C-alpha cells in the first residue's frame, strides 16, 4: 500500500484520482496521450439500456470559470458497451473500472446494472440519478429522497458489486438524499453532478444551448461541491467520492479534508487533457508540503475541529 492509495468499497486504488463520467469517453482518446493505468480508476460514459443519440446542438457553452454541457447521455446502449467498448478498453486499462449508469425508470436502472453485473472488468456501478440534461429521467430521481432510495434499492437487489449513487446538487438538502441512499443500501455516494445553468446569446436573444439549460462544471462549482461533500460527510457513514471543479492536487486534498475518500476530475480533462496525470504526479510533493504522510488518513480531516 503506497502513500497515495485509498480503499473504495473494499477495492484498493493506487491513488484517489478518478476521471469523471462523460469527460473521459471510454478512455481511448486519453490512452493515446498517456498511460491511463496511472489513474486510480475512471468512470466511463453514462450508459443507458437503449442507444441514445443525445441532445441537439449546440450542446456546449462557456462560463467565466467553467463550462455548460447538455450532451443528453449520448451512448451506444449497454449491450454495445459490453460487446464493443469494454473489450477495447481492456487493452489499454488493466484496473477495475466504474460503470456509470443512467435510466428513465427504476426498472431500466436495474436492468442496465444487472447486465453490467456480469462484466468482470466493472469494479463499481455508479448510478447517476442526477443528469440535468434529459427529461423524465436522470435528475428526477435525484431530487427526491424517496425516489433516490427506490432506485438505489432496485439496483442493490441485482448486483453484488459496490453501488455508488451519483447525487445532484440541484436540491435543497443533499444530505437528506445521501442518507436515503445509504439507508437503501448504497455502498458510496459521489457528488456533485453538474449544476443546472444557462447562457443567453445577446445577438439572437435566445439560449445558447439547444436544450436551453445545461450543467455547469469547472472551477466555478468547486466551493459549492466542497460544501456539499462536507454536509454529506456529516450525514452518512458510507464513503464519498468528491467531484466538481477539481483541477489540482491541492483541490484533491481539500475535497478529502471535507470528507471525500476518492476524488473525481471532470471538466479539467477537457481543457487540459493531461490533468489527471499531472494531478497524480503533483500529489506526493503537495502532500509533503502540507505534512500528509498517508493520503487515506486525511478523509474528513477538517471535521470535528470545533470540539478540540
Amino acid at each position, binding site marked *: 500500500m503506497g502513500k497515495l492509495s485509498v480503499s473504495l468499497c473494499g477495492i484498493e486504488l493506487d491513488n484517489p484520482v478518478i476521471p469523471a463520467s*462523460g*469527460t*473521459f*469517453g471510454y478512455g481511448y*482518446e*486519453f490512452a*493515446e*496521450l498517456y498511460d491511463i493505468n496511472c489513474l486510480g480508476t475512471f468512470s466511463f*460514459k453514462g450508459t443507458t439500456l437503449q442507444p441514445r*443519440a*443525445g441532445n441537439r*446542438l*449546440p*450542446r*456546449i*457553452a*462557456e*462560463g*467565466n*470559470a*467553467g*463550462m455548460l*454541457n447538455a*450532451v443528453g447521455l*449520448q451512448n451506444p446502449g449497454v449491450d454495445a458497451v459490453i460487446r464493443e467498448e469494454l473489450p477495447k478498453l481492456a487493452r489499454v486499462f488493466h484496473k477495475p473500472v466504474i460503470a456509470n449508469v443512467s435510466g428513465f425508470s427504476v426498472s431500466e436502472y436495474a436492468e442496465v446494472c444487472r447486465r453490467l453485473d456480469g462484466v468482470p472488468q466493472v469494479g463499481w456501478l455508479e448510478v447517476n440519478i442526477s443528469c440535468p440534461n434529459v427529461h423524465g429521467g436522470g435528475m428526477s430521481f435525484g431530487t427526491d429522497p424517496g425516489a433516490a432510495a427506490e432506485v438505489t434499492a432496485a439496483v442493490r437487489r441485482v448486483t453484488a458489486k459496490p453501488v455508488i449513487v451519483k447525487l445532484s446538487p440541484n436540491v435543497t438538502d443533499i444530505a437528506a438524499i445521501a442518507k436515503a441512499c445509504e439507508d437503501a443500501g448504497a455502498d458510496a455516494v459521489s457528488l456533485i453532478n453538474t449544476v443546472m445553468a444557462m447562457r443567453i446569446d445577446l445577438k439572437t436573444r435566445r439560449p445558447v444551448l439547444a436544450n436551453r439549460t445545461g450543467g455547469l462544471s*469547472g*472551477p466555478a462549482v468547486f466551493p459549492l461541491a466542497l460544501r456539499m461533500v462536507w454536509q454529506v460527510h456529516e450525514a452518512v457513514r458510507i464513503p464519498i467520492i468528491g467531484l466538481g471543479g477539481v483541477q489540482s492536487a491541492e483541490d484533491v486534498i481539500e475535497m478529502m479534508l471535507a470528507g471525500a475518500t476518492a476524488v473525481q476530475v471532470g*471538466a479539467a*480533462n*477537457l*481543457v487540459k*487533457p*493531461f490533468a489527471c496525470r499531472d494531478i497524480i504526479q503533483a500529489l506526493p510533493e503537495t502532500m509533503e508540503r502540507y505534512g500528509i504522510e498517508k493520503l487515506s488518513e486525511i478523509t474528513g480531516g477538517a471535521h470535528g475541529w470545533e470540539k478540540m
Partner: protein
Amino acid sequence: MMKQGIFTVTESSPLTEKVSRLVLRGDVSAIERPGQFVQLRLDGLYLRRPFSVCDRAGDSFTILFEAAGKGTRLLRDEKPGAEIDVLTGLGNGFDLFACGDTPLLIGGGTGISPLYWLAKELIREGRRPTALLGFNTAADVFYEEDFRALGIETVVTTANGSRGVKGYVTDAMDRPHSGFYTCGPEDMIKAVCSRSDRPGQLSFDRRMGCGFGACMGCTVKTTNGLKRICKEGPVLDRKEVLWEN
C-alpha cells in the same frame, strides 16, 4: 495523434480590418493533413478555441481568423514572443484523393484558411486545383495573392462586385471540375453542394467542448451514424451529410 505543446507567436499581422494572421512556432509533428485544426488555450477563457490550420511549414503553423468575439480579439492582440498552449493534430482533415485531378477549392471569408495548405498539398500530388474565394467587399479580400503565388487559377468573388466577379462563390462554379473542397458559412456549403453533382469534401464548424472526442459536445447525425465533428470530422463527405443537423 494529437499532441499538447507550448508554441511561440512569431508573427501577428492584420490582413484586413477584421481578419488577422498568426504564425506559431513549436512542435508541429502532430499536424499531419490540411483540414485538421488546433485548440488554443487563451488567458481568462475556460474552454480552448478551435482554429483550422491554414499552413504548416518547417516548425511553424499559420492560422487566419476574424476577431469576432472575446477569444479572437485576445488572439489578435497577441504579440510576437507570446507563448500559447496548443493542442495540435485534431480532426480528420481533407482526403486528397477524394475529388479528382481538377477540384475546385471553394471558400467563404475565413473559410478559405484550410484551403491554402490543401492547395499546396494537392499541387504536390500533381493535381490542378482552382481556388474560388468569396468575400463581401473588396476591403474584405485577403490571401488572394498567396493563392495566386501557388500558380493556380484563383477567382475572387465579392457580393457587391467591388472586386473580381460580382456575386457569391457559387456564381463562379460554372466551370469544368472533378470535385470540390469547401469551407465557410454553412449556407454557402449547402449552396455549393446544390450547384455541383461532383464528389465533395465539406469542412464543418460546431461549438466544441474538448476538441478531441471526449465530451460528445459536437456530435452530428450522418448516413454513417453519429460522428463527432472534432474527431471523425471536421471534414465530412457530401454523401454522408444529413442537413437537418
